[in-house]
């Protein structure tokens, strides 16, 4: 059995996290090999190593039986590895042809020999049915067509091994079918393909063999024919973990927020949220489960007011808030813990105090006629630091001096202390140490018991399952399932998260 790729005992550590822990991957020649797992499973890091973006701390890489080192993407390309990224590396204002030949330009004297390039590319196009107009500008292409360009790019460089990173994430069903045909043809002509994804449907349709990863470790090596979604889901998501936190009885009150037929477009102008409807009542935690990238970000942004709503309606405490500004929504009682705290929720170069007072600086008594009362603001920030156990000797230190967990506590303190009616908590414990995780979980439950409505969005299924009264599963912009606490186990929910199943009935 000849292997195209062997990754042996690869370990890669980043500060605070072991991305890959003695991971071994075996890909046969001519195989379409699926590498699956959730976000954070370690598969992207593994592929980064294979493609030369980063170096492993330990372990061996063998290509076609020969041990080798891959120091950079350039080296990887030379060794016959081609990668089609999730976010394309294309130049929008140049043509398809120019994008393909960049870095490997055939020349006639001093000028580019476009004819020779076209000959070689057309051969590739014909061989693999990757039809595309070479003279079109990238900006004019659809997402599926752009992906073709990326594949042709790899083949133009004589790639023998193709890595496709979440290739179906942004494709329509018909484009996916076309892609599958292309992959089959590639396989027929002896190419080896590694297919990274979290989507079970496609993986089962396309691949010959699978490797499943979870939290930096390989949890299974299977032949596709011999497995099914249940087994895969179990391997990807793991066994049930019970992180029970004592909660009061579930007695939901009035409706706090009602989302009806919501449609939101992403920054890349694709429809990210498709006709989503649900509601959250006071005194309940609704957890939205799903792998990142299935529309949760856009959903949160639409609810919090940071993005436009293309269709549908959001009602908050009975009021239609579609056109309300972010500030107005906050004043009505909405708080938001963002999923990327450093990008959106905090300013590292400002002081801790500056970060804490974000929701109050413009209100009385802290601000009168646009003048800030720094004394009162200082007392406020000291009070918050104490109450929320933020470990710092003085809130006038810069935020950058805090640990990740403490930074999250700052966000938490700020958002929760304004006594919101609805708290949107997105990935609230990401990058946070165990102690802070426990604290945050307890606080969320405390809020719920006090009668607040909480929208919990998390890629950590454990977290969702232990905290939520109701669970909604989001996949490809739609809500595909709804469960009450205890109605489903991790495997089942996992299957919906991976697109294997879809509930039929109307969901509220």
């Amino acid at each position, binding site marked *: 059995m000849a292997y195209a790729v062997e990754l042996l005992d690869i370990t890669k550590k980043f500060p605070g996290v072991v991305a890959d822990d003695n991971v071994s991957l075996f890909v046969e020649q001519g195989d379409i090999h699926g590498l699956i797992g959730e976000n954070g499973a370690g598969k992207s890091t593994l592929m980064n190593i294979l493609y030369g973006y980063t170096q492993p701390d330990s372990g061996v890489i063998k290509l076609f039986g020969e041990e080798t080192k891959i120091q950079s993407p*350039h080296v990887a390309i030379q060794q016959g590895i081609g990668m089609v990224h999730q976010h394309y590396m294309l*130049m929008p204002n*140049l043509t398809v042809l120019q994008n393909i030949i*960049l870095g490997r*330009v055939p020349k006639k004297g*001093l000028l580019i020999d476009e004819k020779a390039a076209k000959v070689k590319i057309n051969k590739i196009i014909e061989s693999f049915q990757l039809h595309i107009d070479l003279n079109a500008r990238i900006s004019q292409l659809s997402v599926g067509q752009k992906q073709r360009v990326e594949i042709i790019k790899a083949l133009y460089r004589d790639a023998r091994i193709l890595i496709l990173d979440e290739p179906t994430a942004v494709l*329509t069903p018909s484009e996916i079918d076309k892609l599958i045909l292309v992959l089959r043809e590639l396989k027929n002509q002896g190419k080896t393909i590694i297919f990274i994804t979290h989507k079970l449907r496609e993986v089962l349709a396309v691949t010959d063999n699978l490797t499943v990863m979870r939290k930096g470790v390989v949890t299974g090596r299977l032949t596709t024919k011999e497995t099914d979604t249940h087994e895969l889901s179990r391997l990807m998501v793991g066994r049930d973990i019970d992180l029970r936190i004592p909660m009061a009885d579930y007695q939901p009150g009035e409706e706090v927020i009602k989302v009806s037929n919501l449609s939101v477009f992403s920054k890349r102008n*694709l429809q990210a949220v498709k006709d989503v409807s649900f509601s959250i009542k006071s005194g309940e935690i609704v957890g939205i489960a799903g792998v990142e990238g299935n529309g949760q970000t856009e959903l949160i942004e639409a609810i919090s007011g940071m993005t436009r709503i293309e269709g549908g309606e959001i009602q908050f405490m009975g009021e239609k808030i579609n056109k309300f500004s972010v500030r107005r929504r906050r004043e009505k009682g909405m708080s938001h813990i963002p999923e990327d705290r450093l990008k959106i929720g905090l300013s590292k170069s400002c002081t801790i105090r500056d970060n804490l007072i974000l929701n109050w600086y413009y209100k009385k008594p802290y601000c009168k006629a646009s003048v800030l009362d720094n004394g009162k603001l200082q007392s406020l920030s000291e009070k918050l630091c104490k109450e929320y156990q933020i470990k710092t000797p003085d809130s006038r230190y810069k935020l950058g001096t805090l640990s990740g967990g403490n930074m999250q506590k700052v966000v938490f303190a700020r958002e929760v202390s304004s006594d919101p009616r609805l708290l949107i908590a997105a990935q609230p414990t990401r990058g946070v140490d165990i102690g802070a995780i426990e604290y945050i979980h307890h606080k969320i439950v405390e809020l719920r018991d006090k009668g607040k409505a909480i929208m919990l969005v998390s890629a950590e299924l454990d977290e969702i399952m232990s905290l939520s009264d109701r669970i909604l599963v989001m996949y490809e912009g739609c809500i595909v399932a709804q469960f009450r606490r205890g109605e489903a186990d991790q495997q089942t929910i996992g299957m919906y998260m991976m697109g294997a199943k879809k509930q039929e009935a109307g969901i509220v």
Partner: protein
Amino acid sequence: MEISFNSTVLASMLRIATPLTLASIGCLLCQRAGVVNFAMEGFMLMGSFVGVAAVIFSNGNVWVGFLFAMLSGALISAIFALSVVNFKANQVISGIAINLLCSGATTYLLRTIFKVPGTIRADDINKLETLDIPFLDKIPVVGEALNHHTIITYLAIILVMITFVVLFKTEFGLNIRAQGESEDAVKTAGINPKRVQWNVILISGALSGLAGAYLSTVIVSSFTIDMVQGRGFNTFTAVVFGNAHPIAVWLVTLLFGYADAVGIQIELLGTGISPSIIKMFPYGLAIVALTISSGSAMNRNIGRPSKMKQLVGRILKKPVSETNEETAK
């Protein structure tokens, strides 16, 4: 108008536009590679000083002047490149600093080396001859206008054509354009982005230096403090206006040259319009062009059709297609 299009004016236009054209070639290459080059003013100033100085020291040899002007321009541009490419300093501020540096340095060197307060003259300069291309005399107006220029002017036009070919039809040009579009793509393709940026900056330094020398050895034969008088910024405007396309930029520089030429004419004729007002127009036009281009870029990024299309669509009551890739293909 009779005044505006006679061959004298057109010839003036070409003459005046020459240094702009030369400098703008370098600037547009930088722009294409993603480098905002504001330092042309400084490069040109340095070139004009070194040009005259070299002529004086070589007893009148213009070509020595040109050579050293280009070298000095390239040298200063190397400082700019180091700052902006290697140290990733803010491009605009660095450009401004370079301009200041050259202004100070040329004035300083002027006083130090030549012990003269404001101007040095190269009296014994072997002035560049003007060429006489025979068949041009036969073409009315345009031909006459094109004839009897120095070789530098013709060189500028030829360089524009060469730049066009290089930018769009050679690997070198492709790499430059790629760098301006996506540094990630360039890196993945195995090309060194720093090398690409250094190349275009050095080229712009040399060409701007030559442009400066042209000012001080051909148009006049002297160097005066701050003689560049904002032409470097005009170059930048021309590049933005012409969207960094060699032909378009060249035409804009001709437009500027024309405006200057006509301005002089009007001054000579004593008509009412102040030359200051005329000099304003290029900048005003540049702002309008800039606004239009950034407005449509903004809409492109969001994926919305440009405001123009929206407006037209609403008028015609037709559905305007958004660039929604889900619906395509």
